[in-house]
């Protein structure tokens, strides 16, 4: 069976052009030079091997029944998706679409790991890859899911690749999900990531993300706190070096009373890398007892690297507690002095402070296996000769 919306979106795609820097505020800082979608060939991703247990299933769209397809159809049939070039392209082109379905009333102890690795062996051609993942967590369930998007092994390819991923998470009532996205890309990748989540009443979503590499990338996240009492925590970490450019935009929308959100994004830039973090927070009028915080810390290890922090807070309710903070700069000189008074030389103090900067987030990832790998990879990127 096929997703009914696909055909409709194919037609819609004819009407929605590739965005340009002048298209909207979202794309204002993105340089589309050398990005020509028609020049990319499609990467033929092997069919997903079906996994089905009494607690969960992971299936290709082609293995889904009409009820599940109808659920996905309804989920994706949104104005914002319908008018977005990259979402439309992903949904219409993706041959590797999967549906992760966690049943209601289950407590999954294991971490479900979804690996979206292109491992491109063919050199000398520009390839594109469109991983599409829909996740549904039923009511009263607990789960941990890690999604890995990786083409870092394609380092030798000189041609551009285009990674365009789309993930939608539906979190049921009273459920808890810890979701980790790890994106590690080759330095020739144009990458566009769309993550949308919707959280129902009294659910708890912890959204961790780590991204590194790529040539130029845009990461867009939209989190809807739809149900009363829904809680959302967003932890983000990024390390950029060389000439990497990453424009990361997060939007948290509180749709109900007693909802709580907190964002902590940390970024390290070095060489000539450029990272932008835009944090949108929207609390419409008439909501009660909403708590929201947004913190963004950036460390620049070289003078030629750039980190930008752009907070955009739209708060129309009065019964709201909000906190916001951002820093952009070098290592805190007082922390540095403190460690030096404890006998650490300049290099060691710098090393431990950078590691601590990263650890404050990584220590909170419950996928410890992936967390260890991430820390090691980041250290390798910051201090290439030390690892």
């Amino acid at each position: 069976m096929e997703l009914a919306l696909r055909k409709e979106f194919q037609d819609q795609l004819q009407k929605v052009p590739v965005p340009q820097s002048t298209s909207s505020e979202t794309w204002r800082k993105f340089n589309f030079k050398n990005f020509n979608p028609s020049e990319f060939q499609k990467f033929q991703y092997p069919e997903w091997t079906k996994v089905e247990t009494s607690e969960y299933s992971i299936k290709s769209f082609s293995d889904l029944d009409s009820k599940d397809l109808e659920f996905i159809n309804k989920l994706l049939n949104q104005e914002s998706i319908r008018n977005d070039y990259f979402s439309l392209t992903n949904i219409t082109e993706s041959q590797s679409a999967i549906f992760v379905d966690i049943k209601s009333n289950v407590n999954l102890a294991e971490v479900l790991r979804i690996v979206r690795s292109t491992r491109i062996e063919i050199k000398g051609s520009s390839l594109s890859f469109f991983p599409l993942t829909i996740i549904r967590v039923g009511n009263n369930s607990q789960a941990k899911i890690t999604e890995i998007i990786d083409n870092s092994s394609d380092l030798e390819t000189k041609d551009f690749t285009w990674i365009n991923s789309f993930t939608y998470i539906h979190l049921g009532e009273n459920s808890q999900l810890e979701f980790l996205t790890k994106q590690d890309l080759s330095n020739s990748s144009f990458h566009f990531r769309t993550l949308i989540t919707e959280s129902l009443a009294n659910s708890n979503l912890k959204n961790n993300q780590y991204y590194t590499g790529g040539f130029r990338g845009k990461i867009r996240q939209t989190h809807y706190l739809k149900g009363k009492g829904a809680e959302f925590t967003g932890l983000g970490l990024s390390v950029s070096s060389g000439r990497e450019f990453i424009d990361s935009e997060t939007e948290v929308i509180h749709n109900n009373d007693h909802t709580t959100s907190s964002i902590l994004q940390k970024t390290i830039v070095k060489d000539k890398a450029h990272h932008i973090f835009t944090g949108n927070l929207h609390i419409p009028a008439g909501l009660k007892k909403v708590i929201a915080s947004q913190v963004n810390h950036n460390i620049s290890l070289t003078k030629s690297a750039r980190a930008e922090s752009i907070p955009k807070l739209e708060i129309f309710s009065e019964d709201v507690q909000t906190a916001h903070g951002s820093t952009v700069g070098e290592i805190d000189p007082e922390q540095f002095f403190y460690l030096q008074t404890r006998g650490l030389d300049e290099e060691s103090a710098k090393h431990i402070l950078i590691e601590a900067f990263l650890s404050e987030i990584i220590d909170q990832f419950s996928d410890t296996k992936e967390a260890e790998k991430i820390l090691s990879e980041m250290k390798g990127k910051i201090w290439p000769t030390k690892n």
Partner: protein
Amino acid sequence: MTAILEIHGLHAEIEGKSILQGVDLTINPGEVHAIMGPNGSGKSTLSNIILGHPSYKVTKGDILFQGTSILDKSTDERARLGIFLSFQYPTALPGITIPNFFRTVLKNIRGKEIPMREFKQELKQGMKDLEMPDAFLQRYVNHGFSGGEKKRNEILQMAMMKPLLSVLDETDSGLDIDALRIVSEGIMRCRTEQNSILLITHYQRMLNYVVPDFVHIFAQGRILETGDKDLALKLEENGYDWILEKSGIKS
């Protein structure tokens, strides 16, 4: 006998503003010196300068540690020589857990890795002495600590680093009566005939536990008067005005 610390005619400034204006001080092994003075007198500046804080510039005079000038030594070199500073406001180090921090610090101070078993025993004993719960081991250094917890952690470092000279900058501030006793007893446990303490404080109350051999009154960037522990009692009773008037600072 070589003095642990000798400060001769020390002048220092920050961003062109003169802070220390001719400090002279000698501390011998085993001695406890207390520096007392009003707010803004330059007491904390002195402690930062002894440790070589990069924001301050020494314009005149010298600081000798065990007979050798340390002015050209970096902060970490001074720490490894055996000078310790307990901060008035210890900075938080989110992301660095207490065990990781101590292991790294001790490796640098002692110049070698300490076997894990030995390290754990030493840390646990130090924490027990200062009545710090085991839950501290899971926490980041000074992150979310109360004022009292921060000061205990400073004295725990003093106990484990075993410095020759401990500069304690207002270690008594922010402590309730019980915490003051625990922290003071912790300081006293570190005392030997070889090491010395320079205690900077506003109040006399810690000096009931850490009894000084000398009390110095500090104002306008220099020592105005030196006496024994009774001088601290006199200050507690009469305040600073009499000494400021005597020195011609206040009329």
